[in-house]
């Protein structure tokens, strides 16, 4: 698509520097670039939003209309209904998304916090602590990102199946599985950000007599807060939208199945019930958006803001 925008830098970079004094031509050019820039930003924003708007509008249309005409017809020939949402949220026990909504929450919150906590500590071990073979182990962890989930499902399932713990804590296997699958990426991302924390800060603290626990809690953690917040959002989203792990480790059991599994089941095994799917997809989007807005303020100062201010 607009990849061309950034594939040009090399030639531009080799141009001689512009004259030091700002000419009126330069000012004019700056104005034009800002206009062009705004236009590009608006085009991207529109392109990215229109498909979702289509989904939202469709979710409010009657079943027959969804099948027979494009969603934009809803504007010229309005006929809206809440029936789709009513069926998705009310309905029978197996289509009632409210229960699955809770399941998804119970799965997603620990499945976000656990890998986050473990990965922050591991990144400390990989970036601040010094030990032989550290970088090679790190590369190994990094490479583990690519192990396809599908290949890890069966061995992991064997650990839990039939155990007493699995009966008492039905969500445990889901939490652990999500945690394991998230760790390589979490460690990779957080390590990269932790590596940016200026060494001098840590050394200064150590000279003051601080041990690793103090350095970790008082120096590194506060500086990492934005990075942690953004990873938390992504991890929450990934777990929330995951289907494969949810299906496998819930064993299809309705008591623990997440929203995505219910949504997929709604599609039916033989046909596509667009009207229910559109409404269901929208319901499942709500919480991720709430989380995004809630944590967005952490982005403002930047993931690496600490290293600059420090």
């Amino acid at each position, binding site marked *: 698509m607009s990849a061309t925008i950034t594939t040009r830098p090399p030639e531009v970079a080799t141009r001689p520097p512009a004259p030091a004094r700002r000419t009126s031509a330069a000012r004019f050019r700056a104005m034009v670039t800002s206009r062009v820039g705004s236009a590009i930003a608006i085009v991207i924003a529109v392109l990215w939003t229109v498909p979702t708007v289509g989904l939202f509008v469709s979710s409010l249309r*009657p*079943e*027959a209309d969804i*099948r*027979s005409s494009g969603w934009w017809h809803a504007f010229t020939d309005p006929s809206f*209904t*809440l*029936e789709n*949402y*009513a069926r998705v*949220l*009310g309905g*029978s*026990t*197996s*289509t*009632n998304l*409210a*229960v699955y*909504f*809770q399941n998804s*929450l119970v799965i997603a919150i620990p499945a976000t916090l656990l890998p986050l906590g473990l990965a922050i500590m591991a990144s400390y071990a990989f970036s601040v602590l010094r030990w032989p073979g550290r970088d090679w182990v790190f590369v190994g962890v990094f490479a583990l990102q690519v192990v396809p989930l599908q290949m890890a*499902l*069966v061995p*992991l*399932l*064997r650990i*839990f*199946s*039939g155990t007493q713990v699995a009966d008492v804590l*039905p969500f445990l296997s889901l939490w652990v599985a999500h945690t394991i699958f998230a760790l390589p990426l979490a460690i990779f991302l957080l390590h990269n950000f932790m590596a940016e924390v200026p060494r001098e800060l840590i050394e200064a603290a150590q000279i003051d007599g601080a041990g690793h626990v103090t350095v970790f809690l008082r120096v590194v953690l506060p500086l990492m807060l934005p990075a942690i917040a953004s990873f938390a959002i992504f991890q929450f989203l990934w777990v929330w939208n995951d289907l494969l792990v949810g*299906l*496998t480790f819930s*064993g*299809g*059991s*309705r*008591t623990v199945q997440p929203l995505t*599994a219910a949504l*997929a*089941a*709604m*599609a*039916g*095994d*033989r*046909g*596509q019930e667009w009207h229910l799917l559109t409404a269901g997809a929208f*319901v499942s989007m*709500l*919480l991720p958006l*709430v989380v995004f807005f809630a944590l967005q303020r952490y982005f403002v100062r930047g993931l690496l803001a600490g290293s600059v201010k420090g």
Partner: protein
Amino acid sequence: MIVNRTRARRVSAVVAGGLVSALALSACAGDDLGGGGGDSAGGDCGAFEQYGTFDGETVTISSTISDQEADQLEESWADFTECTGITIEHNGTNEFESQIFVQVEGGNAPNLAIFPQPGLLSRMQAEGHLAPAGADAQAAAEENYTEDWLSYGTIDDELYGIPVMGSVKSFVWYSPSAFEENGYEVPTTWDELMALSDRIAADQGDETVKPWCSGIESGGATGWPATDFVEDMVLREAGPDVYDQWVNHEIPFDDPQIVASVDRAGAILQDPERVNGGIGDPRSVATTPWAEAGLQVLDGNCFLFRAASFFEAQLPEGTEVGPDGDIFAFYLPADEAEDRPLLVAGDYVGAFDDGAATQAVQAYLASPEWANSRVSIGGVVSPNQGVDPANASSDVLRLTLDLMQDEGAVARFDGSDLMPSEVGAGSFWTAMTEWVDGRVDTEKALASIESSWPK
């Protein structure tokens, strides 16, 4: 449409609530994880005495059945569970085909599974995961099912799977009101069908209206409706015996008789004068969701749509289905009116262990009592010969039951479900999709499937 008040309120409650209200909401329903107390039975339990009584036993069943159909399934055995004390926990997912292997290999097998195709059942058996049906279940099965149906659940002379629900695929859906309006008659032979098709093309055909409509898109299973079509043609062009040889790979996949059968399907699916009403040219068949194609019949964009009995579930609510309604189905005719080859499919219940409760449930599912109970609830039929057609919930299902119980009809199971899955859920689908897409001719398509057959 009218929005139910209480439902609407529930909508706004959930929409408004974020994390907090969702958690609070959960206090009411579905939050309990402790063991539920068993209710003591009320009502008449005499009919269930033969299965014995169990105290607090739970039998788990996995299947592809989800959504509303799952609720109906659970309702069908409610009396049984109450009287015997067995709790049946049913888990339906549409990812069943892949999930069941993961669960079994992960040591997490259910007690019973309802396999949507016999191929999966025999793969499970080959890997040594299945237990044969118990004595009671076997006796009930032999009493209530025809040999044709049981043969697909029998492996090495041992009965592993019992058919519980079934469908007939050899149907053409049409609009009775449109037929009446135009003076069209339901055809009883293949030639009559094609003559009707030509007459419709001459009367009605234009840029958008065609005699037939068809679609083979179905997500990850895209292509299956085309393989069904071809199988129906093999039964008609070459007959049931050749069909069996073809399915078992005793003749090559691209045998001349099969080529002729596929070409017969092509006479409809690849002729721009005959398809694809309301959607586009013949190539559009490849990307049209199969059920969406059938809905064109309701809009008058096409007049004939070949699809299984379960297409009924895809019709919008309020559609009148019946011989005088908006839409109905007739038997896809063979060359002679007396020949009635029937392409069928069905779900088989197989057991992963030989526990007493497991076997009791399996035996119950093989009984006419269960089959009638399930059929009365609606939406499906069972190949159980003890089912009273009067219990069928719709005209199409009654027609299906009549055909299933018709002694003159020769039933053959959907071949792609019986072939090795590399073929039946792989190259057969892919090659037929390419063929519909017009990228390969019949010989080439069939030759590529032949070469993919595992040695």
